[in-house]
């Protein structure tokens, strides 16, 4: 059930549906054109996430390519009943990025500074700006609703690629506390973002 959304982009070309779920289902049937559209839809976020975790641009590029090829290769395993297409893609992306930093670095030098590096680049496409504004504003607002410890535990793990015991060490907190803050922080975030299992 793919609907057409003729989107005017900067170059005034029309684009088909941007429904990631529908696109991924087409990709699962071997549709390369759908894959290209899916790529365009998610790539700035996938690459942004990988860069944030991996840091090194050359490595980030390599990992991002592997992720996108994996999305193609394993699209047949995507089960829409278990989550959204973007959720599925970013789960793969995050896991791959984290695997890379963990294999790259000896355990001892993994505790590294979390420089709040601005990876956002000027995207002059109004379409993307509009989306990013809406989505980012919502995620940021919801993150502000967390306690400081919840927020730090979650962002260090997600963006920094740390294990929870490393996070505990960084924050000087007890292991069970961090484990719990990650969970209750995400639960609060879930409720704020309106992520629900529809009945």
């Amino acid at each position, binding site marked *: 059930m793919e*609907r057409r959304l003729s989107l005017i982009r900067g170059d005034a070309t029309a684009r088909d549906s941007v429904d990631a779920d529908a696109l991924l289902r087409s990709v699962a049937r071997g549709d390369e054109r759908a894959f290209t559209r899916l790529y365009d839809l998610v790539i*700035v976020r996938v690459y942004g996430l990988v860069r944030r975790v991996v840091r090194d641009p050359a490595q980030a590029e390599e990992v991002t390519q592997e992720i996108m090829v994996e999305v193609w*290769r394993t699209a047949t395993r995507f089960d829409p009943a278990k989550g959204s297409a973007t959720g599925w893609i970013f789960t793969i992306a995050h896991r791959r990025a984290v695997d890379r930093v963990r294999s790259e670095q000896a355990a001892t030098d993994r505790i590294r500074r979390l420089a709040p590096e601005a990876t956002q680049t000027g995207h002059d496409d109004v*379409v993307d700006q509009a989306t990013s*504004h*809406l989505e980012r504003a919502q995620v940021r607002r919801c993150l502000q609703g967390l306690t400081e410890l919840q927020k730090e535990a979650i962002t260090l793990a997600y963006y920094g690629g740390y294990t*929870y015991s490393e996070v505990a060490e960084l924050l000087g907190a007890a292991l069970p506390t961090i484990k719990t*803050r990650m969970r209750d922080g995400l639960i609060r975030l879930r409720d704020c973002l309106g*992520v629900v*299992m529809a009945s």
Partner: protein
Amino acid sequence: MTDVHSLSGAFVLDALDERERDSFTQHMETCESCLLEVAELRETAARLADDVWSVPPPRMREAVLARVAITRQEPPRRSRAPRPRRQSWRHRTTVAVVAASVVGLAALSGVFILREQQANEQLARIEAVLSAPDAALRTGQLKGGGHLTVVISPSRDAAVVMLAQAQPYDKDHAYQLWKIRGGQPASAGVMPAGKGDAVVYVTGLLGTETMAVTVEPANGSQQPSTPILGQVPLAT
């Protein structure tokens, strides 16, 4: 490690070491509530990627597409016979990530409006609503398909209303938004004709109980002339 269950947060953040990851995965096999929680928290964690944007070098696209062209896809996994305990969860159907997909999609298509009305100003107003401390999200479905999403900020007396994936009508018809106050509808804006996706910034919401949508002639109507297709209550 007495309480495996509480590892769900660290699990979806990929923050467990291998051994814990394995033991948690094993635990999930027999824990129905974990499956549900992990599915939801995983979607939530994925939303953190919304906040990191970085444009990759254009050569990456060519490289990926070239590799895809010569990469065979894996066969689908045969679905295992559902265990009895998982039955009820499976029947509760899909994870709907309301905010993620609807806000994203609607924003993408909303560019039509944004463009015409000075994108930046409009984005600033939208952003102000979305980042207001009291911003609340309300969602509803449209008959015949589509979603209606309202982010309302009472302190700003404003809302951002998004229509997504609604059936597009011909160029002589448009979706019209109504503020319903004391049972009386007042127009809150006409969407672009022939479009099933749009974003509208609405003010003057005091006393408005419900936002509703109907299909009207392209220029809009004074009063709804067709039945309400979808509505979202605004009261908290």
